[in-house]
């Protein structure tokens, strides 16, 4: 069986697992929507669409939407399922089969990307009635979904690596919270050039900034290939690092 087939079989199993645990899926949608509503409620009046140039004619919810999409892509619930699998012994059962360690690492990440495609599509569908438009058109919509799914692979891969190293649900859960400081060190509320110099410096060093700016450009502008390219570049480099680390850890797992 080829590595691709093994990955697909394991990914299908992880998706089935997600489908059977809707309780784990619900916060992935509700919490990002809650943040969107609260952030827009707090700051929308400060940034009226008519006089705020960085909104490019849309409302403040359109500016805030990428934060919520990134948050939805950063839950990585499958890493917690992996810890359960390690504790319960099923992970050893899989390791005792002639399965490529790369497929073992990628199976769950594949399911996370598919799950995220569904979640992002749902969140965009929920956003449309509130006047949010995807200014970059259908191609932009596809790129937006792919970028979110790519980030889901990156962050789930990071959490999966923590799960493999620590084999602890508490440590994996805590690592998930690391996304919040990363999110707040981005140009979350205003564009980067309007941040104070220390915050602008921190945001410039933060890779999440480039993914957020890529997503934001797809919502607010026509196709801006520089912002899109930077967003995908961050995802590709980060995904390569976390997947390589996952495979290395799987191969040396004792």
């Amino acid at each position, binding site marked *: 069986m080829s590595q691709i087939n093994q990955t697909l079989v*394991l990914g299908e199993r992880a998706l*089935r697992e997600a489908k059977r645990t809707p309780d784990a899926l619900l916060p992935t949608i509700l919490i990002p929507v809650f943040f969107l509503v609260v952030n827009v409620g707090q700051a929308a009046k400060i940034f009226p669409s008519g006089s705020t140039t960085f909104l490019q004619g849309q409302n403040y919810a359109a500016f805030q939407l990428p934060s919520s999409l990134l948050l939805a892509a950063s839950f990585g619930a499958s890493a917690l399922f992996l810890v359960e699998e390690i504790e319960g012994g099923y992970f050893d059962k899989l390791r*005792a089969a002639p399965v490529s360690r790369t497929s073992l690492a990628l199976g769950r990440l594949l399911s996370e990307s598919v799950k995220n495609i569904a979640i992002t599509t749902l969140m965009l569908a929920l956003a449309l009635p509130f006047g949010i438009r995807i200014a970059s058109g259908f191609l932009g919509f596809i790129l937006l979904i792919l970028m979110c799914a790519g980030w889901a692979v990156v962050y789930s891969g990071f959490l999966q690596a923590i799960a493999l190293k620590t084999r602890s649900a508490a440590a994996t859960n805590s690592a998930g919270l690391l996304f919040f400081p990363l999110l707040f060190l981005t140009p979350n509320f205003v564009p980067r050039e309007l941040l104070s110099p220390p915050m602008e410096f921190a945001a410039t060093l933060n890779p999440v900034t480039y993914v957020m700016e890529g997503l934001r450009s797809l919502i607010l502008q026509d196709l801006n290939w520089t912002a899109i390219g930077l967003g995908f570049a961050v995802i590709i480099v980060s995904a390569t690092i976390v997947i390589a680390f996952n495979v290395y850890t799987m191969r040396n797992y004792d």
Partner: protein
Amino acid sequence: MTFAVEAEGLTKTFESRSGTVEAVRGVDLQVAAGEIFGFLGPNGAGKSTTVRMLTTLSTITSGRARVAGVDVTDEPDEARRKIGVALQEAGLDPRQTGRELLVLQARLFGNSRSQAATRAQELLELVDLLDAADRLIKGYSGGMKRRLDLASALVHEPEVLFLDEPTTGLDPASRLVVWDEVRRINAAGTTVFLTTQYLEEADALCGRLAIIDGGRIVREGTPTALKSELRQRRGLDHDPTLDEVFLDVTGRTRERAAGEVQELQG
């Protein structure tokens, strides 16, 4: 001669905060094809660690191990194709049904979707789980989980089956069912490498056994030979049980065990 399981100087050390722990210290083993081989030892003796090394689940610090003639370090995937593994605490995914688990396992061993479905059906019939096949595993009893675990270790018709304490936690009736399964699997030509803490289980099932203590093999032979050796050496006027052999070779006594309990209570 090619042995079903062969280990030479097998060693495993772990690094811990208090220093290096030697879990297995130079184990030599030879298990002939077709045997049911028992691997006994007290808790923490190194049984499970040895099994994990033999089944490619743990790296080997030093020494060599081969299963069905395949070196587990040099060709781990080839070794995995030849062995079936059912570890302590039946390792199953509670969110799948019994059938889904077997189909997945069969597919990971290279079967097509239809071949995997057919094999899953055969195995469900074999372990008498057809009625529960499409229920989630989380609803299975301990005995059903053990039987499913056993079935999942057999999807690819392995040459050597490793069973790590397969009856721990089972009620007497379920234990007898597992024993019958093990005998049937062995009668079909599969070598069985069984670890257990139940000495009557080893006595009932195993043609030959080894006792490990402190990471070293301290006795090896047929149950009959081990008992008769103890009877002669101690000049006993009765046939000793395997329990007495075990207590003798591991240096444990009932009095010492009682003392350990008292210390814990104190």
